[in-house]
């Protein structure tokens, strides 16, 4: 071991130039790809968002300009959609966390004694990934449609008004978002809880802390990295999603989110600047929210 360290230390001054050339060779293709197909499109999106309609042009014809009023227009026009995107995503994130925490705790802590059961349960957690996201959502639409057993029996028991619907409501959209992103929440929670040292929990109860205090003061702080990762992995795609809120899936005319209007403006109305401006707003808002959240959860972790 010491010999190996000595050998590398001696070899290093010989070939720094060659090494950096190898690093460049390894990095260049992938980084160039990301610059070309990730960074450049973002810049293109900003430029598009400032375009103005071409004079005497057709629908979908725009020229580069500095038409920042596009942003004012889309915010005025689509404020409810913006609010819905973040509201629904927040609700789905909280629900997914509440759903996933006990599940991840059981798999990661209680099931440690049975590794085979543990890996089987992990396969079950990711099983929804193996079946088309859209078909899963459509399956829920049919399971929870007005004619379905669940909804009609709820109505028969007078737990739901006879003329009420579930699909097409905000609840259905939040339900769909929650369901679809649960694995993204459960997996990071599992990875931190799996490493949780249970001796800390024993120490807590030896010091006469009740189970709730042990959970609040020991388990939650120790699983904070998983909570932060899981909430981010759920919130970001949920805020940009437009499948669940789409009318053909779980949504209705009053549940459209930002993703739906970006899609409509880009692919149907051919109003590219509006779609681009909305995309930039979505991304900027998410970056700001995530920045604040990571910072706050970081300081809470230290306290």
């Amino acid at each position, binding site marked *: 071991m010491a010999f190996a360290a000595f050998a590398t230390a001696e070899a290093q001054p010989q070939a720094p130039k060659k090494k950096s050339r190898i690093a460049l060779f*390894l990095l260049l293709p992938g980084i160039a*790809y990301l610059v070309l197909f990730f960074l450049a499109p973002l810049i293109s999106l900003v430029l598009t968002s400032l375009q103005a309609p071409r004079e005497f042009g057709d629908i979908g014809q725009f020229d580069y300009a500095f038409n920042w009023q596009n942003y004012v227009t889309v915010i005025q026009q689509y404020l409810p959609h913006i609010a819905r995107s973040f509201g629904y995503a927040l609700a789905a994130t909280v629900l997914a966390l509440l759903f996933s925490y006990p599940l991840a705790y059981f798999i990661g802590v209680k099931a440690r004694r049975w590794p085979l059961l543990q890996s089987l349960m992990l396969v*079950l957690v990711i099983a*929804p990934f193996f079946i*088309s996201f859209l078909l899963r959502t459509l399956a829920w639409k049919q*399971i929870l449609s007005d004619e379905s057993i669940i909804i009609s029996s709820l109505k028969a028991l007078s737990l739901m008004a006879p003329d009420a619907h579930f699909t097409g409501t905000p609840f259905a959209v939040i339900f769909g978002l929650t369901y679809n992103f649960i694995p993204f929440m459960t997996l990071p929670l599992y990875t931190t809880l799996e490493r949780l040292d249970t001796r800390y929990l024993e120490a807590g109860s030896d010091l006469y802390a009740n189970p709730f205090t042990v959970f609040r003061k020991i388990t939650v702080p120790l699983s904070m990295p998983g909570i932060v990762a899981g909430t981010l992995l759920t919130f*970001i795609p949920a805020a*940009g999603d437009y499948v669940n809120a789409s009318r053909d899936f779980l949504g209705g005319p009053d549940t459209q989110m930002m993703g739906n209007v970006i899609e409509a403006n880009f692919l149907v109305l051919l109003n590219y600047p509006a779609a681009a401006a909305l995309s930039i707003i*979505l991304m900027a808002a*998410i970056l700001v929210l995530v920045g604040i959240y990571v910072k706050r959860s970081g300081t809470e972790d230290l306290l």
Partner: protein
Amino acid sequence: MSGEVQAGAVLGGLAEQEQREGARIPIQKPRRRRIGLGDWLLPAYTIIAFVFLLIPIVYTFVFSFNDSIKSNISWRGFTFDKWLNVCRVEGGAVCEAFGNSVVIGLTATVIATTLGTMIAIALVRYRFRARSAISLLLFLPMATPEVVLGAGLAAQFLAVGVPKDMTTIILAHTMFCISFVVVTVKARVASLDPALEEAGRDLYASPAQVFWRVTFPLLTPGILAAALLSFALSFDDFIITNFNSGSTSTFPKYVYISASRGIPAEANVIASAVFLFALVLVIGAQVSRAARAKRLAKLG
């Protein structure tokens, strides 16, 4: 003398044990009750949670056997017909979409896995400037909503005047897969013992030989995992595809477009078949990993 001491020690020990047991009772009581609660409540919850997670999968699978005529909403009876004649419906539109998805997934996976593995090796093994900028560039695609990625690429293709077809879908999928490959392979590179490569060099292997005979085989599990993840991400992607596909159909896009008029049961057949295939693959990987761990334990 020594007998007395021994007896005293034994008695003392017994007394101590008795004392401990006596003292333990009031502490253990609430603890036992807590464990008792967790013993059935948490497993029961876990079972309910898994049932909930699996409901739509079972539904999709069951309805692949539905003897439906056009749309697959109400149950009309059991048939194997849809499984046996998947490609017959709508002039094979479902199968064409599925085939496109496989071609796109494989191509994007090969490119993304190659580029991502190279980056992962460079990130772990070499020190260079602009390291934090590169890390940010790799992290951002994962933190950007898909709608923004899709609209951005579509805006660029529009600005440059590139017509949207299968190539643009592959370019888009490769882009979002690279970051996931880097994350997956990086962990594997970091856990690699540099002494093994050192040994290869000491035995007069050329750098290429060291890479292909030592490094690459050791990285294979990580690279395979990254490739599987890439393929799964690409195969199931709808949002980015929708913005960059033009008239090219993929399986998720086919489902999205037919959702308004009703999905044929054949789509359920394809989704169920893919599900079963992936399940067998994952369980097989788990079992072989467990077997290898057992073998290694026996050797050690």
